[in-house]
């Protein structure tokens, strides 16, 4: 695929790219930066593995695994400046990790103890959005706000901001995503559309969504599109950094298609054996986003057994914290649920809140201490 930006081959060989090499010069120059990316990948994958297990144990109602998409998410997430803002789907656990959202906060939605989990303004990460593609418009509107705040194209890196919209290949068929493209194009908003094309929208293959490569759709909307190896964290970092920088300086939106693969089921409720063949997974296993960074580190002599052992231990600690922490997540307070429907509790809702509180108290009384 000649139009694919790739900086690390599946075997972990660093290949030169005149356009994008400068965007990761810092990582090339500093093995610690590469190790940090590897650490993100390993820990995010471990978190995801634990979450799948927690769902199987009945501790989560559902989980949407990011297995196979760690490179795309960590690359994009680490490309963001602290004051940038991202709008995720429900699978962006790697992005949430990069934005400093605690994994336990991410679990809350899937355990059914909250519908949100974190304060978006604290992390520069909006809440997960479940209805497919809606958030592409939110990201575009937010970027229009950034424009109106005069936080684009000033040349001040602490002021200029960009917005990153995540969605998948299935979402590109949604009206909202196409409307977002139109809005962003017409307004020249500082938004980067980061599409993780993981080849499958539950059971529907990419051919059900498009007749042309997704990144080429951008052309018709009047902005550039680029396809990047979504299993190559370095390439995703470089391409997203470049796209965000372009947006921040006022050059407008861009579409990044991260070509990747959903190695797991759509969610824990899905059974992918009904619609795809094992041979396809075998092929993508050889392109694993985590292994190629490890190979690159080892080949360059940038990681020793001690580093790898320490990272293993750190992953184990994280896993244990996720396992025990999930079970300790506070249950939703039935009365508090009424507090945030509106700015203020109106008399009708107060009455309904009191009723549910009475019912909850009765239930509590029936449970032996």
């Amino acid at each position, binding site marked *: 695929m000649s139009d694919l930006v790739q900086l690390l081959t599946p075997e972990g060989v660093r290949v030169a790219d005149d356009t994008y090499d400068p965007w990761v010069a810092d990582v090339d120059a500093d093995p610690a930066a590469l190790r940090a990316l590897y650490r993100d990948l390993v820990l995010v994958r471990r978190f995801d593995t634990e979450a799948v297990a927690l769902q199987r144990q009945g501790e989560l109602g559902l989980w949407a695994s990011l297995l196979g998409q760690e490179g795309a998410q960590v690359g994009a997430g680490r490309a963001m400046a602290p004051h940038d803002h991202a709008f995720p789907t429900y699978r962006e656990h790697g992005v949430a990790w990069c934005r400093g959202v605690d994994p336990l906060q991410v679990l809350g939605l899937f355990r059914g103890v909250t519908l949100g989990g974190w304060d*978006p303004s604290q992390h520069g990460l909006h809440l997960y959005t479940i209805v497919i593609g809606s958030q592409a418009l939110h990201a575009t509107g937010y970027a229009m706000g950034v424009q109106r705040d005069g936080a684009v194209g000033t040349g001040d890196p602490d002021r200029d901001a960009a917005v990153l919209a995540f969605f998948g290949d299935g979402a590109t068929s949604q009206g909202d995503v196409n409307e977002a493209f139109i809005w962003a194009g017409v307004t020249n908003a500082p938004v980067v559309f980061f599409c993780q094309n993981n080849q499958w929208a539950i059971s529907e293959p990419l051919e059900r969504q498009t007749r042309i490569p997704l990144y080429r759709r951008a052309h018709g909307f009047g902005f550039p599109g680029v396809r990047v190896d979504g299993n190559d964290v370095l390439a995703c970092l470089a391409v997203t950094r470049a796209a965000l920088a372009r947006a921040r300086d006022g050059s407008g939106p861009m579409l990044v298609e991260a070509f990747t693969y959903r190695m797991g089921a759509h969610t824990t409720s899905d059974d992918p054996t009904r619609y795809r063949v094992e041979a396809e997974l075998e092929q993508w296993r050889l392109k694993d986003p985590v292994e190629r960074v490890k190979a690159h580190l080892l080949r360059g002599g940038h990681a020793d057994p001690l580093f790898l052992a320490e990272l293993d231990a750190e992953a184990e600690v994280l896993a244990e914290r996720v396992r025990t922490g999930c079970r300790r997540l506070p249950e939703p307070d039935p009365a508090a649920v009424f507090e945030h429907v509106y700015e203020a509790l*109106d008399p*009708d809702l107060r009455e309904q809140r009191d009723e549910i509180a009475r019912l909850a108290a009765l239930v509590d009384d029936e449970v032996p201490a």
Partner: protein
Amino acid sequence: MSAASVRDGEPTRELTLSRAINAGLRRALESDPHVMLMGEDIGRLGGVFRVTDGLAKDFGEDRVMDTPLAESGILGTAVGLALRGYRPVCEIQFDGFVYPAFDQIVTQVAKLRFRSEGACAMPIVVRIPYGGGIGAVEHHSESPESYFVHTPGLRVVTPSNPEDAYWMVQQAIACDDPVVLLEPKRRYWDKGLVHTAGAQAPHPLFAGRLVRDGSDAVLVGYGPTVRTCLDAADAADEDGRRLAVVDLRSLSPLDWPLLVQTARRIGRVVVVHEAHRTLGVGAEVAARITEECFYALEAPVLRVAGYDTPYPPSRMEELWLPDVDRVLDAVDDVLAW
């Protein structure tokens, strides 16, 4: 009557309902730099009803934005703007065009405060000219209020006169909850005195008003049907029947204290709206009044509403819409009980 006069020591202007909204929008734009208007043809053209006339010229295209023709895009980008601290006022050109935006309104705008446990307010106003009676083509005469009233997280208000329109649009914009502002399009040209220099709104946004008192029955209307109710009350007066009229003004929340108190006092209630009868606002009013005022009622609560068909071809809309005669028939029925 002169164009300007003085009432209660404060200058007033005689304005049409549409000009009153225009004046209210202007004042909101002047007082808060984060207020912005978005919609189709609202800038250079000033809106198809000219409600935003002159605002783009005075406040610039960034604050009075002609958007691409996509209603979901208007509301979806408004969500993002609100998250960034703006207060978008979205115009949906006609009632029947709101459905492409329905998903963003119901799924996102209404729920974000709740989902985020208060972290994300959605101070968005959705202005919708609604209702029939102007001889329009299909999709230009609908009354979709029940969809929004049925959605927790939204507020729904509708003025019936220029003074309310002037203040309610400003109050809706100042409100930190999302507000659907339904504008009775066939009353856009009704004139009335407006306190444009007043410092503060004369009534709370979410309160109904007893606009005419009476003792035999109370007519409950909102938006375009308040005028119908007042005309019916005038006609009944000639027959010696004293009808009260309540203007609901707010459909979410409904002003239950006012409704319950009035129903208890008068004992006979007729609700009048253009929206289809089944599961309309009148159904909720009837149910609640029955629950709370059962022993004070002299008759069942009756509804005079649009029929349960799609909005008809305009040449028969006068027959389809609630009018004075249908209201008076219902009054006869409640009085005969």
